[in-house]
């Protein structure tokens, strides 16, 4: 497998670098500060997303009739992500990727024709309306109700939270309850919702890093026509679970972030004096950085392995949960140690060191998004206990 692709991957990497050099926004991305903060930045970002689709840096895995590329291979996306991270260029919005795949899988021909081109042109940014204040990790508990009005349309009432990009998205992917209150995962239905539909109100939810990335979304008598239905009535769980599959390879390229954090840590540490001494001259600091490097290499090795086994169909249950734990918790530990170390000393005036320190602080304050969202580390451990280790469930007598 590796021999087959090495050349193709190297070529692809070079092409991605070329596209980035030519078209990516000039301001480097900040971890945890991804949503655009001004109309100018937003315009620039949409322009770049359109380029990404046009150049096959996004959506290359779609069917050819919708703009995908025949020569595409899953590893190309891993390479793309790595290159984007290295260049600190904006990556595609996860929710856009999710919506694309679900529309391709569950959408009617009309839905595909209407939404897919608008995704490729970046006219439509998508957000996800799944989580609720009392149903974060436990989606089957969600309460937002969709009542069928008899004419094929639905009236929606409820509250959503953690709506990433909701404040600048045109479209939302909504999960609402069409079954009884007790129906859990059996009574859910998925909808495609224009965010300017009357009755939708968005309020910002500011992160601990001070960024406006997330929102609360209030749905008050929102009426959706039959064309908004994605998949079948009460078939929403299937749609949501299918979405989880999309993220399978996602973590692949992301581990490149760990190497970047370590590079920043070394850059900052080289300019840092703690208690009057250059800190990299201390064994304990050098060895601690080495320890973190080893952790990052372990995460990287596991993820690389994981991609290989998935490609040959020999992955084990829960491999992606293991990858998520390794990546997100190492990301947290590296950035936490770095901020702590830098805070304990005098960084001096080296602009590279100051920039690296700022990135590390951004990363630390963002790190809990990685260990909490998309299934918290605790939920991942529950899943692994059950699926990977096959441990018995606590009896409920």
């Amino acid at each position: 497998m590796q021999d087959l692709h090495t050349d193709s991957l190297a070529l692809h990497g070079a092409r991605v670098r070329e596209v980035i050099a030519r078209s990516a926004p000039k301001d480097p991305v900040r971890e945890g500060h991804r949503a655009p903060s001004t109309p100018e930045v937003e315009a620039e970002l949409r322009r770049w997303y359109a380029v990404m689709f046009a150049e096959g840096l996004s959506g290359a895995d779609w069917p050819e009739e919708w703009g995908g590329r025949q020569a595409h291979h899953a590893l190309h996306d891993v390479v793309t992500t790595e290159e984007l991270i290295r260049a600190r260029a904006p990556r595609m919005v996860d929710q856009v990727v999710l919506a694309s795949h679900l529309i391709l899988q569950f959408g009617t021909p009309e839905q595909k024709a209407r939404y897919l081109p608008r995704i490729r042109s970046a006219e439509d940014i998508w957000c996800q309306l799944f989580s609720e204040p009392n149903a974060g990790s436990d989606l089957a508990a969600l309460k937002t109700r969709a009542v069928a009005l008899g004419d094929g349309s639905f009236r929606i009432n409820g509250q959503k939270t953690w709506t990433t990009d909701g404040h600048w998205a045109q479209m939302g992917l909504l999960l609402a309850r069409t079954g009884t209150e007790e129906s859990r995962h059996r009574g859910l239905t998925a909808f495609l919702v224009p965010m300017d539909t009357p009755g939708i109100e968005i309020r910002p939810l500011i992160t601990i890093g001070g960024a406006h990335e997330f929102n609360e979304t209030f749905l008050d008598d929102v009426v959706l026509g039959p064309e908004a239905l994605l998949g079948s009535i009460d078939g929403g769980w299937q749609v949501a679970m299918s979405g989880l599959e999309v993220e399978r390879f996602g973590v692949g390229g992301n581990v490149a972030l760990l190497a970047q954090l370590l590079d920043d840590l070394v850059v900052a540490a080289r300019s840092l004096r703690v208690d009057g001494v250059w800190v990299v001259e201390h064994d304990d600091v050098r060895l601690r950085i080495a320890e973190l490097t080893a952790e990052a290499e372990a995460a990287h090795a596991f993820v690389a392995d994981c991609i290989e086994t998935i490609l040959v169909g020999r992955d084990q249950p829960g491999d992606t949960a293991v990858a998520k734990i390794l990546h997100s918790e190492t990301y947290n530990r590296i950035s936490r140690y770095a901020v702590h170390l830098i805070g304990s000393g005098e960084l001096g005036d080296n602009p590279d060191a100051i920039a690296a320190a700022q990135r590390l602080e951004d990363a630390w304050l963002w790190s809990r998004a990685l260990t909490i969202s998309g299934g918290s580390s605790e939920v991942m451990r529950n899943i692994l206990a059950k699926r990977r280790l096959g441990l018995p469930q606590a009896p409920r007598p």
Partner: protein
Amino acid sequence: MIDVEDAEILRSTAREALGSDLTLGHAADLGWTGLLTEETVGGAGWYPLEAVLVAMESGRAGSPSSWTANAVAAAIVGSIPELAAQAAGLLDGSRHAGVSLTHLAPLIDARGTISGRTGKLLAEREPDVLVLIDPDVDQAIVLRSDDAGVEIHEDVAGLESTRRVYRAELDAASAVKLAGGRVAELRTAAVLLLAADTVGAVAAAVEMTTDYLRDRVAYGAPIASFQAIQHRLVDLTVFELAADALVRNAARALAEDDPDAPRLAAAAHTYTEARAVVAIDDCIQLAGGIGFTWEFPLHHLLRRASTNAAVFGSGRASADRLAKLGGW
């Protein structure tokens, strides 16, 4: 020495007072600024344990007040005969102090004036009086913000959100020096007051997280009923209790002029500084999404503990001191 019951009363009184946004003036009215200063110059006497108990509550409340800086500065200023009269303004809260740990030798120029940059000064507003204490030598210097050659500016980098961090740039400033005397005890007290503040922040974070998870339901049960979560909350509590005991034990030794006090204070700082940050970071994880929002107070406590960890010497410096005092 304050007994178990009196300590409880002091803590709960302080907690109540800190409930509202307590400023330096109120703290002075409550007598907190005088807890390290001799009675002859208007202080309450030598009460480091009481000061530490109140500092824990300040940390718990995330209080902006910098009364601890005034308490340390008043004691230093009050012990210098030519400045003693100026202690009053620090004790009554009319003047704000900033205290930093700064290697003094490199700052003292040939003419005996002071030039260079101070360490970080933590205060609720720009300080009027600066006290720089050397980390190794028992020496301190006192400067006034309106002295010639003293320029103070706010340090806006860094995580702090409940207080402010300042630096002073000194240019041939004249300073009053204090060598020996009470410098060593007050340096130890200053370390302990920060460690105590951190322990208070941890206590608040752990309680806040525990209370939140007691009510919050997931998968049909309160999150705090899940055993894996319970064990982590217990571990956080055990850390908080041990850190609290260690800081108080060091303060008690300091109050009794026990020669082991500097070693215990170094142990207290070593034990708390990195662990506290990890503990509060873990609280954010346990609290889930809500802990990740700006409105929920956990991140302010995280920022506070993170700042405290290093504003008066690094944890590794304290560990090094602990090793040296242990003779290895």
